[in-house]
């Protein structure tokens, strides 16, 4: 085996055998699955019947709330309604004309109340369109949605009646239009769902970001360890400093890739084995996955964009979308390229930092300029998800210090279309830059590892480059 091979092997096996590695590798997927299940359980509608005291100053809406509830069966057939939006539990409205709001609130506070909430409908409801719901225990979002639907419909029915119109007729002319944005170059006729795609890219970019941070710091720590252990001089009498540095960087990279691969496998196993048992009857993993990923993302992104009337995709549509509209093959290949390229770029700089200092506490002054562009790339990506092709995103997906995170968002958002040229330039730039940083790092490294007890300045580092 070549010497660099020996070094890679030692770096790899000494880390993979560590307890902390094994624990992290197993624990993270369990935690991830736990969070997923936890979030799912929390997000599931509670089958709790609610009794609501209605204080109605408008003197008309409150007592008619029950009429909307009769329409719920019909609503199930309404293509615009979200089938999941309605509670399985029953909401009972109890109009009360004797109590004032203050009295009702005092009663709700007193524990003697035979109701769970107070719905206050003001006199000017028809103008203001605002009601107030007083609670002791916060109702979940689906209960809130149900109440809102009931009130909306009641008012609509009352208004329709007032106008001498037939409610069924009104419903048939009521219109709600969804706008699907489609890239003209795209062959598919489906909504391009740029936000979801950007979100997928962001998730991958985030992984690269974390990977670079976690394992870059490990490279730095490893170099400092060798330096403070004083073993480094023995080793560089057998191998070139550059071989030692590259062996370490590559060995740790393989550790990261191993961990990543194991996470993917373990998460896969957990979600296929454990999930079905965790779910209530009638759910299958497919719909669950759809529910977990889809509507939340869409809703969040839409909210962020200030859209009020977003169109929520159906579960099966999302699964279909995920499989057909996202170019997984090329996305994963690009992910791996930027994953490795970004890590090599930052890892070599981290190795240089480790070589320049005597202990971890001295790393601060050098860490900041190295981590800053990485954090910047992350922030740009967060903002860029809404507008993946903005000028800033275009530039940052080319600059090698930010491209490993930003390019993933851009590429994924555009589903790779029209990206070939900028992808190639970005990749070439990254390759050239990491060769450059590795070369620079090698120069700093070989001087730094044999330098003890000296507070190193930037000026000093610059001199080392010329040795």
């Amino acid at each position, binding site marked *: 085996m070549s010497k660099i091979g020996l070094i890679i092997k030692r770096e790899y096996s000494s880390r993979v055998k560590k307890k902390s590695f094994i624990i992290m590798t197993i624990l993270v997927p369990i935690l991830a699955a736990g969070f997923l299940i936890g979030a799912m359980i929390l997000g599931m509608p509670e089958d709790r019947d609610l009794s609501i005291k209605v204080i109605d100053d408008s003197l008309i809406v409150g007592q008619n709330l029950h009429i909307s509830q009769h329409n719920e069966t019909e609503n199930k057939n309404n293509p615009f309604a979200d089938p999941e939006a309605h509670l399985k539990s029953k909401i009972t409205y109890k109009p009360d004309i004797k109590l004032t709001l203050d009295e009702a609130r005092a009663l709700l506070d007193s524990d003697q109340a035979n109701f769970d909430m107070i719905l206050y409908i003001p006199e000017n409801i028809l103008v203001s369109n605002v009601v107030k719901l007083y609670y002791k225990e916060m109702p979940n979002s689906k209960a809130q949605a149900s109440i809102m639907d009931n009130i909306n419909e009641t008012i609509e029915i009352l208004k329709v009646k007032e106008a001498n119109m037939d409610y069924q007729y009104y419903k048939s002319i009521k219109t709600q239009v969804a706008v699907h944005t489609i890239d003209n170059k795209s062959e598919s006729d489906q909504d391009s769902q740029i936000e979801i795609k950007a979100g997928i890219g962001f998730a991958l970019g985030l992984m690269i970001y974390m990977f670079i941070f976690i394992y870059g710091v490990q490279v730095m720590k490893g170099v400092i*360890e060798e330096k403070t252990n004083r*073993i480094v001089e023995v080793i560089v009498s*057998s191998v070139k400093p550059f071989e030692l540095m590259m062996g370490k960087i590559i060995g740790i990279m393989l550790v990261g890739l191993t961990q990543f691969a194991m996470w993917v496998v373990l998460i896969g196993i957990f979600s296929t084995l454990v999930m079905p048992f965790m779910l209530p009857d009638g759910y299958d993993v497919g719909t669950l996955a759809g529910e977990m990923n889809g509507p939340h993302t869409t809703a969040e992104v839409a909210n962020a964009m200030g859209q009020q009337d977003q169109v929520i995709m159906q579960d099966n549509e999302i699964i279909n979308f995920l499989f057909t509209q996202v170019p997984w093959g090329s996305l994963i290949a690009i992910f791996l390229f930027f994953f490795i390229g970004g890590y090599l770029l930052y890892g070599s700089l981290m190795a240089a930092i480790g070589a320049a200092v005597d202990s971890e506490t001295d790393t601060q002054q050098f860490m900041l300029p190295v981590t800053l562009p990485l954090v910047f790339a992350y922030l740009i990506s967060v903002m860029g998800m809404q507008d993946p092709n903005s000028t800033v995103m275009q530039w940052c997906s080319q600059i090698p210090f930010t491209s490993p995170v930003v390019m993933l968002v851009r590429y994924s958002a555009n589903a790779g279309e029209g990206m070939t040229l900028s992808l190639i330039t970005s990749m070439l730039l990254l390759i050239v830059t990491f060769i450059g940083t590795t070369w620079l790092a090698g120069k700093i490294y070989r001087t730094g590892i044999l330098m003890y007890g000296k507070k190193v300045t930037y000026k000093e580092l610059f001199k080392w480059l010329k040795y």
Partner: protein
Amino acid sequence: MSNEIIFKAENIVKRYAAHTALDNVSIEVPRQSVYGLLGPNGAGKTSLIRIINQITAPDSGAVYLNGERLKREHISQIGYLPEERGLYKKMKVGEQALYLARLKGMDKKEAKAALDEWFKKFDIAAWWDKKVEELSKGMAQKIQFITTVMHKPKLLILDEPFSGFDPINTNLVKNEILKLRDEGTTIILSTHNMGSVEEICDHITLINKSKKVLDGKLTDIKAQFTDEEYQIEFKGNVVAFANAVWGGWELVNREQMGEHHFMATIKLMEGNNLTNYLKSILDHVEILSVNKRVPSMNEIFIKAVAQKDNVSPDEVEQSLNQENTEENE
């Protein structure tokens, strides 16, 4: 011991940004000898050693091993124990020794066999599966020594080999060094503690302020710097001692050891000899012992530097002390 040269450095110059670490230094190391590289801290010894180990390259000058220009392939023939030494703390002893052996170019089987032998020799076979952090400092140093010599290097380079070793381990290592030399290894040994190596070095080079001051066979150098000085321990009257011989000598030092009991250091001038001198004083005092005073390596160093720089020995000593305090700060 043959006079064949195994290692040669010619006119080595190494400059760092602000200072010159080695200024035209040449050494020739005879095969199967212990070669001492002596000089105060900061003289340039470690710079020279790093060049021999190809950790750094000289700015000019050439280095030869066995008559060939030094190249990467020679690494397996060189063993190096740096001044700053250490091991991976979390790694197991045996695993680590194997790793270092393989970096030196040994294959796995060969390395395992050599290590088994050494571990047996030092009686530490039980440590194979221990982690280095579980070992005491002395134990770790033994391992370190083994990893330096396990690949049977032709040239062994030891930088300050005795610093940090306790007296027992120092002796163990001294004996091993001599044994290795007798088996054919050539050893270059560097130290600022000049007294510690006198007994094992065959040849020495004195380095000061990046320059070679003096080199040669230890016995020759000692002879060259030895004056006709004698330590005479006697009982009797000191005035009688002083008056016994009128000329041709000078009293360098006198110490009172007890009542009428003295130790005098005298220097004989040219044309005088010890026998005549002793004959003259025999009638006046009772002589207990007579020793020829051989200068220590430290004294030789100071004298040599003084001669070379054309200053007084006191000035050299002063500047050396100053350098040492600076080093400690």
